[in-house]
């Protein structure tokens, strides 16, 4: 590899999380705006997510519960920052070609584990209940998610996201994941919704029941870190879905339209429903999306 290529890759790896953060902030805004519109409210102003984060980092007294509490938040944000470098966006591939979907699937689990470590040290019972629910729901949605990833990789004959996107873009709409394997795409949407932790899968936040679960002891910069994590989470989930099923982005305009459009589906559903119990969630997610994903795989492999 020439020196220029290495330099370019380094710049891309630095730029991609920054771009992801900015887009993620707008995704948080869209989520809150949609919630407000559905409830016939005006909703927050344009820069509200940024105000929240700056304010939380600007708190003058910070309560830390120890070293692992600090490291847990760094892991939660860091896992997503690393994942962004593996998600190709128009014009920037970063290290996506070297990473592949399997590495990405591992990296998206790091934040939950980091959060579990951090919350564990807070010794708050609500936090412990919350994190055990978060890990349970991760166990639930990861199974359809992995089956979907397997199906997509089988269909395109590659686990490399850059190749998957290139194949879809070369053939146009008829070769997009969503038209080649619509059942898998539906299962993927279901799994993505569950992975976002929004209603009706909001078992681990549950403000009225366990006081926001993992976030219960987080104030100031810790909560700020979680807000940053949330914007990365929305970005990662939607961009991954767009890359697998909607042909990635030919340019920034179509890319952003697809990402925001995909994210709007779970968000609109979320604010119309209450939430399930933990056991109901596991039963539901292991039944329907898994069944859909298996049928989808049968169609792909026939």
């Amino acid at each position, binding site marked *: 590899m020439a020196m220029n290529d290495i330099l370019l890759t380094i710049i891309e790896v630095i730029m991609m999380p920054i771009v992801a953060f900015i887009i993620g902030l707008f995704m948080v805004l869209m989520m*809150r705006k949609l919630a407000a519109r559905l409830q016939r409210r005006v*909703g927050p102003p344009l820069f509200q997510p940024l105000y929240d984060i*700056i*304010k939380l980092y600007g708190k003058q007294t910070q*309560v830390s519960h120890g070293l692992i509490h600090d490291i847990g938040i760094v892991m939660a944000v860091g896992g997503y920052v690393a994942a962004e470098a593996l998600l190709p966006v128009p014009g920037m591939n970063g290290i996506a070609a070297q990473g592949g979907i399997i590495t990405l699937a591992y990296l998206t689990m790091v934040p939950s584990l980091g959060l579990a470590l951090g919350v564990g040290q807070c010794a708050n019972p609500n936090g412990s209940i919350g994190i055990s629910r978060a890990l349970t729901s991760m166990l639930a949605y990861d199974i359809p998610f992995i089956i979907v990833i397997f199906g997509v990789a089988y269909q395109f004959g590659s686990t490399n996201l850059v190749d998957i996107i290139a194949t879809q873009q070369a053939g146009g709409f008829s070769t997009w994941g969503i038209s080649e394997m619509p059942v898998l795409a539906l299962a993927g949407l279901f799994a993505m919704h569950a992975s976002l932790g929004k209603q009706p899968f909001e078992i681990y936040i549950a*403000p009225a029941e366990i006081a926001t679960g993992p976030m219960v002891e987080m*104030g100031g910069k810790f909560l700020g870190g979680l807000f940053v994590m949330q914007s990365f989470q929305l970005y990662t989930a939607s961009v991954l879905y767009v890359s697998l099923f909607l042909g990635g982005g030919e340019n920034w305009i179509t890319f952003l339209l697809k990402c925001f459009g995909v994210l709007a589906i779970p968000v609109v559903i979320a604010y119309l429903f209450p939430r399930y119990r933990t056991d109901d969630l596991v039963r539901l997610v292991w039944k329907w999306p898994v069944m859909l994903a298996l049928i989808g795989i049968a169609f792909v492999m026939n």
Partner: protein
Amino acid sequence: MSNTDLDKIEVNQKPVAKRSNPFANVFDELVSFCRSRSMFMLHYCTGCGAIELPPAMTSRFDMERLGIQPMVTPRQADILLITGYVSIKTLKRVILTYEQMGAPKYVIGICSCTVNGGMYWQSYATAKKLDEYVPVDLYIAGCMPRPEAVMEGLQQLMEKIKTDEANSWKQYYANYDYYLGNQQHLFGNNWQTPTDIIGEAKTYKLEGPNTLGEHTKILESVQRPLEPLEMKL
């Protein structure tokens, strides 16, 4: 409580002195602007004024367009709304909650009960003036104030935060002896909270001449270290 005790309070409502570095000033102004535009209020309500908050939050008045949203735990919150009379038992919880919040934190007293006891002024079981126990940034009088008044009050608080005038949380550290004295007067000399206010005041350099005094001496003599609760089924 005699009125002479009230004179002990240093009223420090002046804006904080600006830093010499112009970039630091711009940064400070940005942070205080963001503070004023993003206020998380604690979901903790006392008394009857709480009933005026749901309309202020939902579609009719929509607090979220001002950046105000409810938060569930004291660690996450910026504003503590005291929405009505505070019984002595509730006051203990209010103080525990207030001390757990991360500074800068603001207290709003809603309804006349928090101002002077309101219709409960004769009661033996309620705290009459809230600001004898925790520093209050803003009162919204009325029995009960309508959502319009609540919104107006919150907008005034926003203005105060933007100009760095809402510093009552610093008074709690600087005059801890006064507030602790009033708390001991109600709850007895054995009163202690899990939060180490004196230690925080020292760590963040928020001590004043009245942080330590006769009442904190009583606290030191009765203070027991916190122990984990016994595990019982």
